[in-house]
């Protein structure tokens, strides 16, 4: 019996595999080097890929049944969570990485797990399309490395409410100190990886540009190793829109990291804001944005809290066994899809914070050297046997006859030589202490069941007001309509300067509103 694929579907999925393969190569070879003397980073990365291969099919189906992937992507654009550019851009990458390793080991064929592949590839494409809807691309790299996530109504609030600053003043100094400490803390709590940091933009603000900087999973929440040591961190996610002069962000890539020309310099920062949000928040909620002094004081307080958490967490981690370090790092990588479950109200700690037995069995070969070399061959050199193509082939970037992720053979359209699934997920385990504390949300500290119940009944103001159907293409010709005004007012609900202003505002109006409030326009 042939597989469930139509020819057209398989063509589209193989194109998605190839696009993923090509962009992951570019990202891995130009954007980062993974190394740590504390964590065995590449061994845990390699191990995580297997957990993705074995567990994503069932868990993503569970999520999709509760809330379709594209709907989650759509809702995620209204807030900053782990459903963001970096996380969404790599779910299919890690899954395909597990497949490629297993193929190279001869443990599966390219024709195995075909129904699972079809579902996971479709799911990851839909959720990215929903999230990246504003610019109608699927990845930032399609848009010449721009992350245009937010619509006008959100950006108007960010611009209008941003608090001015200049080098040497209280707010500017506090922001610079905060960003350094938050970045440091993010790398540590995520076991050396950058998944806790995300950026979107740039967004044009007159002659200047705005970058929206997110710090995710800061407080007691899904990662059990944060319990206790981060009890004083109030907000799980923080978002800081930063408006810069004399700076062009020429790269905001598929991992949500940026480069600028000239190089990013804090001295060019002219205004900032601070918000928290999550899957239970009514959009972005301002954090201590009454005035510049109030925000500076809070940032200093937050910085001190994170610095303390960094020290305490480091002491905890430095006492871990290698097995615990491997587990924690692998779980951070594997759980890039976990916030999808939060949005859908089906999050379970054991789904996302355990490595199942089929993954655990591979630990004996995950020494430092194998981990480093296997990852280097897989995503850097593309030198594994299974990655080699016919000798006439030329890779998009390297011109070599190879591809990172193997396509699905079209033979599955006929005959019986294919298998459908890796089967149901199996029991998992972790060497880490179990989670003991509640989950930090914008609706308070909740139990797992309370989180899921709240998520299942929650609809934010902008979503209720029609954010799904009233996009900027519609707003362009209907901004005076009641529907448009309702949507903008829902987004402006917590705005310091725009509350109740509605959909008719132009950028000149934003300038005028700021001037009337005694604040300088930001367009340069």
């Amino acid at each position: 019996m042939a597989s469930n694929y139509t020819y057209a579907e398989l063509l589209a999925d193989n194109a998605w595999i190839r696009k993923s393969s090509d962009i992951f190569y570019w990202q891995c070879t130009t954007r980062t080097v993974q190394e740590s003397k504390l964590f065995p980073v590449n061994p845990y990365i390699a191990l995580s890929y297997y957990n993705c291969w074995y567990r994503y099919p069932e868990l993503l189906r569970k999520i999709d049944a509760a809330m379709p992937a594209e709907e989650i992507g759509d809702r995620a654009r209204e807030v900053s969570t782990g459903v963001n550019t970096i996380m969404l851009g790599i779910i299919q990458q890690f899954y395909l990485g597990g497949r490629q390793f297993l193929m190279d080991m001869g443990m599966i064929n390219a024709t195995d797990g075909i129904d699972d592949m079809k579902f996971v590839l479709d799911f990851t494409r839909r959720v990215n399309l929903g999230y990246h809807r504003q610019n109608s691309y699927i990845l930032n790299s399609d848009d010449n490395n721009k992350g245009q996530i937010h619509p006008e109504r959100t950006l108007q609030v960010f611009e209008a409410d941003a608090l001015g600053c200049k080098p040497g003043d209280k707010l500017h100094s506090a922001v610079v100190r905060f960003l350094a400490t938050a970045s440091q803390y993010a790398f540590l709590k995520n076991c050396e990886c950058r998944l806790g940091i995300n950026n979107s933009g740039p967004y044009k603000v007159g002659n200047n540009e705005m970058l929206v900087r997110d710090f995710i999973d800061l407080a007691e929440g899904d990662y059990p190793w944060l319990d206790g040591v981060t009890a004083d961190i109030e907000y799980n996610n923080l978002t800081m829109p930063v408006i810069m002069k004399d700076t062009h962000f020429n790269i905001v890539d598929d991992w949500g990291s940026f480069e600028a020309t000239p190089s990013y310099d804090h001295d060019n920062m002219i205004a900032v804001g601070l918000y928290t949000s999550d899957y239970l928040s009514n959009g972005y909620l301002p954090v201590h944005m009454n005035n510049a002094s109030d925000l500076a004081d809070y940032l200093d307080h937050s910085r001190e809290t994170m610095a303390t958490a960094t020290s305490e967490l480091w002491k905890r981690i430095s006492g871990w066994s290698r097995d615990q370090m491997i587990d924690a790092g692998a779980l951070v990588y594997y759980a890039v899809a976990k916030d999808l479950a939060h949005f859908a109200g089906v999050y379970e700690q054991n789904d996302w914070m355990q490595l199942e037995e089929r993954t655990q069995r591979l630990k004996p070969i995950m020494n430092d050297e194998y981990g480093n070399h296997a990852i280097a061959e897989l995503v850097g050199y593309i030198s594994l046997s299974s990655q080699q193509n016919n000798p006439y082939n030329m890779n998009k970037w390297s011109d070599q006859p190879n591809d990172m992720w193997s396509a699905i053979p079209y033979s599955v359209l006929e005959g019986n030589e294919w298998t459908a699934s890796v089967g149901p997920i199996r029991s998992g385990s972790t060497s880490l202490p179990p989670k003991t504390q509640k989950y930090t949300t914008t609706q308070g500290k909740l139990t797992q069941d309370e989180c899921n119940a709240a998520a299942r009944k929650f609809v934010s103001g902008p979503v209720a007001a029609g954010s799904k159907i009233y996009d900027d293409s519609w707003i362009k010709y209907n901004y005076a309509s009641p529907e448009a005004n309702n949507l903008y007012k829902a987004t402006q609900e917590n705005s310091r300067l725009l509350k109740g202003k509605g959909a008719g505002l132009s950028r000149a109006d934003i300038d005028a509103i700021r001037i009337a409030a005694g604040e300088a326009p930001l367009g340069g």
Partner: protein
Amino acid sequence: MSQPKIIDDKWGKEAMMPTVEFYHSAIRRLVAEKFAASGKTWEEAVGDPSLELTRADFENIEQQLLATGYLFETSAQISFIEEPNKYKPVQGVGDSGTQGKDAQGRLIVGTGDNVFAAQDLEGTARFVGTVDVVMDMLINGVPEGTIAIIDDSGGTLTAPILEGFAGVVCMGATIRSHLGILTREYGIPCLMASELDGLVEGDRILVEYSKAAANAYAERDDAARALIVKIS
């Protein structure tokens, strides 16, 4: 594609790295043996739990490699601490005895790529490469004027004390690594991809942090690299 065979791949080739090739080919052999003995089709066999490789199988494969006397390169400190019999010890900074001198006749003990242009800095070289050293500095404070010599481009080993360094010289990675990102955020002068020769703990050094920031996309240019010279 009814079954996998050893290197039954028209365009396949050996892996680049010996450890990867050893493991993957050993696993392929074992899978093929189990499959052949099962008498099943590949589609019947691939999801059959009774035919799956086990943790013991992977342990045996590693033992086969270790039995040849092979020792693994160490990356994380914890790996060597827990299993010193499996790993090569980490090598320190060598001393070729052939170092050049700068215009003032001072010994050049290293060069590196500057993360951002700052001011030249004189300080005391202190090697920060282990949990014990970091813990000591966390408890007792980072000595003033410390230029941390780090062989780790990550952002976690030195997380709780990074802010206390006067400068950083990192022997790993590139200016875009996590440590490069963090030192830039903190405004701590930093060289990445540093190559050291003859530098020892406690040396007074002058680091040319005033050099222009390295271009991450350019080919290596030795003349553009910042110097590390030994003062005393």
